[in-house]
């Protein structure tokens, strides 16, 4: 105690350092505990981000050592790469659909399910989450198949709505709407489970108290009681939804082929994999990755701030 006070009198900075060293010694086992995970985290999450940002300023093809070229890649990307602009447009379009739209769908469904008995709710949770559990996108290929035997085409032909089979997944007019439809189907992911849990977690007595206080219907109850109470879950679900919505490139490959007709469904992820996985222009690929990093983190931060205002 006296030593502590003496140190404080001397310099708060020194005291702070001494305190830190003391706590580091006291919790030395903690560092051992976090070490294995942290090593993997640093190697495959932290360092990759640093690589993406630093290599984005170089020209690197994996055969020759990287050469530093300042912002040439970025200039190329935004001014002379029309395909990238298509990719940005599509990525944001799909991100809006599978991000906010799906988030809203998750929220509404979780809210609905919360009123059912627990058994029925479990069954419905399984059903709505099933598309995330099992990757059965290929079934959609059968449904939207381009010949007359495709499920949708055959029924539409039989009903006389169309005269000849529609090329759902290759005709530039239909690719985007069909993709949006399928992506929405598969978009009830982790955030859905988080929101289900959030609704269940709300203190039941609050509802009765609210009824006494004059809350009249389920909408008022949702806005004034439920949502503010589950703000932490709302925020976590948003992170899951937004992050997921930017990574849908591979799904599009499965459904429409890579590349899709005239690149109409091309996304930033496709562009990234094209340069990084096929052309091996790693400097350029890292530029795309760095751009994606900045966009994803800013969009996430923006929605975190927005959601912290719910019910206030």
């Amino acid at each position, binding site marked *: 105690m006296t030593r502590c006070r003496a140190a404080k009198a001397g310099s708060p900075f020194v005291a702070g350092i001494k305190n830190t060293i003391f706590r580091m010694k006291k919790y030395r086992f903690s560092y051992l505990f976090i070490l294995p995970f942290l090593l993997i985290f640093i190697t495959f999450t932290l360092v990759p981000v640093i690589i*993406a940002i630093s290599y984005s300023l170089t020209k690197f093809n994996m055969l020759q050592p990287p050469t530093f070229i300042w912002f040439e890649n970025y200039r190329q990307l935004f001014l002379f790469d029309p395909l990238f602009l298509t990719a940005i447009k599509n990525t944001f379009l799909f991100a809006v659909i599978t991000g906010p739209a799906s988030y809203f769908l998750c929220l509404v469904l979780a809210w609905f399910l919360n009123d059912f008995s627990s058994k029925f709710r479990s069954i419905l949770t399984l059903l709505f989450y099933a598309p995330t559990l099992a990757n059965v996108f290929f079934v959609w290929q059968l449904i939207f198949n381009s010949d007359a035997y495709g499920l949708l085409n055959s029924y539409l032909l039989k009903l006389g709505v169309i005269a000849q089979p529609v090329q759902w997944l290759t005709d530039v007019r239909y690719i985007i709407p069909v993709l949006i439809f399928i992506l929405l189907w598969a978009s009830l992911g982790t955030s859905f489970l988080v929101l289900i849990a959030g609704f269940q977690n709300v203190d039941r007595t609050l509802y009765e108290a609210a009824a006494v206080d004059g809350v009249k219907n389920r909408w008022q109850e949702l806005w004034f009681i439920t949502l503010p109470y589950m703000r932490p879950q709302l925020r976590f679900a948003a992170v899951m939804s*937004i992050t997921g919505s930017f990574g849908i490139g591979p799904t599009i490959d499965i459904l429409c082929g890579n590349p899709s007709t005239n690149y109409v469904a091309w996304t930033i992820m496709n562009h990234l994999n094209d340069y990084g996985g096929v052309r091996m222009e790693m400097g350029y690929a890292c530029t795309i990755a760095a751009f994606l990093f900045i966009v994803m983190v800013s969009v996430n931060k923006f929605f975190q701030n927005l959601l912290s205002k719910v019910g206030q």
Partner: protein
Amino acid sequence: MNQSTVLKRYHIRIKKAKVNRSHAGNFLVLLLVIGLGVFVALPFVYAVGNAFKPLSELWLFPPLLFPRKPVLTNFLDLFGLLQNSWVPISRYLFNTILITVVGTAGQVIFASMCAYPLAKHPFPGSKFIFRLIFLSLMFGGAVTGIPSYLIMVKLRWIDTYWAVIIPAMGSTFGLYLMKQFMEQINDSMLEAAKIDGAGEWKTFWWIVMAQVKPAWLTLIVFSVQGLWNASPGTIIYSEQLKTFPYAVSQIVAGGIARAGVGSAMTVVMMTVPIIVFIFTQSNIIETMTSSGVKE
């Protein structure tokens, strides 16, 4: 038939404890949920139906949703096809099981070990590390994929199991869930263990891990789900090391001749994660309850 008899007939009980609910509203909600449920279920029904169709029913016009005479031929053909492939299918299955088991065990153990101090010990740097981990949830694999590939080239891990297993162990999503769940553990219990002479490792392994069973079950489910479906085309190219989902996609890509077998295989593939989820659902929901982002 009025609305409440419909509800009663199908044993759908709307919670009584809830106030502020109109019957019309309940009915509308039920209709919407059923409508959406049918839409979500349709592709699954179609896939399962196809798997049980004999060849003569697969290419009828218009296609059937359900088979008229369900048969097991497709599953038997699948077996035959698997035995005759160049690399035996048991090898693909072995690869997937190995990757799934080792990766999942590592993820659960390492993530729990890391989550415990982050949740319970205010060691210097803990807040900073956790902030980094939360930040990583905001970008994920989309950004790190290509740079990770470069790292694996340097480590000479390309075309080895490690390239799939080790990154999977470092899933920050699992760590985040585990840490949030561990914060609920009562501190007095940990102190009691310490007074009884249990070291840090013993406390962690016998006290903490017993308390967070829902969380590690959840981590297992998510890890299995990811690894069971993993088809890492760019980092593994030897045929002997490729995974089961890859074999599935190859068979499905066989086109018309394999339509029935492809469906049978898809059914086999999707059964595993669905069954696992059924048994763990309540634990997962419990874990998700604590997952919220605190202010």
